């Protein structure tokens, strides 16, 4: 439980001269369920892409599973934010999901039947196994999102990164996804999820990171019944449709 799986020290990142992240420090322990909140353009997606090794950084130290970002690919799952799939790309659902096995295989190897059976297993977890031979371009937005979630699960990851996973998903699957994430977390997986959806906090999140150029971390000791209150202390605009509508703009300190 206490093993550190993600460590960020004094990370700063700028893009085209524009500061996106500044002096970010974060430690995530194994088995955590971290919700990453913050306004659009606040740097949430950038932070995750740095952790995944997609964006190279120069200032600060980052380690994921005790390695440099991008060097633990076989132990990590990733659900990107609505990728633009070409309407024509000739690929079926199973061939998309099996790409989740890429980190395991490395180069010069072909997918084996066990890779395909793990991919199929992952498709079952999101109720999409009936669609395995369908062209991905023929699926609806919500169905595609489920396939991408299955792809991230195909390598049985130790850490699962999800970037707005509920953005294009249909309502019935919404709660099913949270249930699935909860089960995975119970099974010992670390979950890092970017979300605008506050219901994920009230149900499952064990800790919260608010990202708006800087990062404010609220760990499990702070999070209990008063969790939402803590979250609302972040300098971000949060709008929730719940029993009570919220719109809070407060500053730290």
């Amino acid at each position, binding site marked *: 439980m206490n093993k550190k799986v993600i460590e960020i020290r004094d990370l700063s990142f700028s893009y085209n001269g524009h500061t996106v992240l500044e002096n970010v420090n974060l430690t995530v322990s194994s088995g955590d369920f971290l919700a990453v909140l913050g306004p659009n353009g606040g740097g949430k997606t950038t932070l995750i*892409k740095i952790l995944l090794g*997609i964006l190279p950084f120069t200032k600060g130290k980052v380690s994921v599973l005790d390695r440099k970002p991008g060097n633990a690919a076989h132990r*990590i799952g990733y659900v990107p934010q609505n990728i633009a*799939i070409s309407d024509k*790309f000739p690929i079926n659902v199973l061939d998309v999901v099996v790409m989740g096995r*890429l980190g395991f295989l490395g180069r*010069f190897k072909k997918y084996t039947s066990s890779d395909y059976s793990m991919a199929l297993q992952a498709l079952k977890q999101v109720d999409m196994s009936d669609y395995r031979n369908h*062209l991905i371009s023929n699926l609806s937005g919500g169905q595609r999102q489920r396939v991408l979630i299955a792809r991230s699960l195909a390598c049985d990851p130790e850490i699962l990164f999800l970037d707005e996973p509920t953005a294009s998903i249909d309502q019935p699957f919404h709660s099913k996804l949270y249930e699935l994430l909860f089960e995975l977390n119970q099974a010992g997986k670390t979950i890092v999820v970017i979300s605008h959806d506050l219901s994920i906090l009230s149900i499952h999140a064990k800790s919260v990171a608010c990202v708006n150029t800087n990062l404010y971390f609220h760990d499990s000791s702070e999070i209990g019944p008063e969790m939402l209150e803590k979250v609302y202390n972040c300098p971000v605009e949060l709008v929730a449709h719940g029993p009570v509508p919220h719109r809070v703009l407060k500053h730290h300190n």
Partner: protein
Amino acid sequence: MFEVLQYEFMRNALLAGLLVSIACGIIGSLVVVNRIVFISGGIAHASYGGIGLAFFAGFSPYLGAAMAALISALIMGIVSRGKKHRTDTVIGVIWAVGMSAGIVLIDLTPGYNVDLMSYLFGSILMVPMYSLWAMAGMNLVIFLLIFLFYKDFLAMSFDEEFALAMGVPVGPLYFLLLTMVAITVVMTIQVVGLILVIALLTIPSYLAEKYTTSLKAMMTWALILSIVFTQSGIWLSYYLNLSTGAVIVLVAAVFFCISGLIPKNVLSGQS
């Protein structure tokens, strides 16, 4: 009909069409799904600079074309990976500058060169035996590279960032792809010329993509269609006494138009 096959030039032409089709089918499919048609056009035209240099300095024009194609592929790769703005503009500039450099270098070369047009529109009826061997060698290299890195190219083409997160060396693969495009372009210049290269890279792949459900099948069908277009184009141009490269492209264009009338679902069997 087949008595014409006793001529070496006709046998070589048909064989050249076949060999070029293999490269165009495989690499053309990757060009289409990675949306680098414009870069490929740039590489083809910039290679003219190398042809000009070869005439001026007195070495093999295809060696010159290959050098210029590889160098421009490298520059365009750096520019397009750099994620800077106006990538397409820079590619357009390289396209035009390469071409212009070629024309000026040929102007500066003493004596008028009559077979200049053959590089612009192809010279498939004059393909020597050693060129066929070179084409076969280049095909073998392309085939091996695609065989080795198929799943990685597929992952990169489908979702580049996910591929990166999964440890796929996307940067090197992208440059490898542009290198293979450059090789394919130089081969294809002999058959249809540098101005028409883009047609053989894109039309068969576009048609194949519409009716297939995997990249592998797309490559295979693009290759087959490309063979059909080149072989029928060569025969037609022989009997009609027309320019071979242009006839090949027009045959492809006829199929391109017909496919507009056949909906996607008919052949792939999906709704």
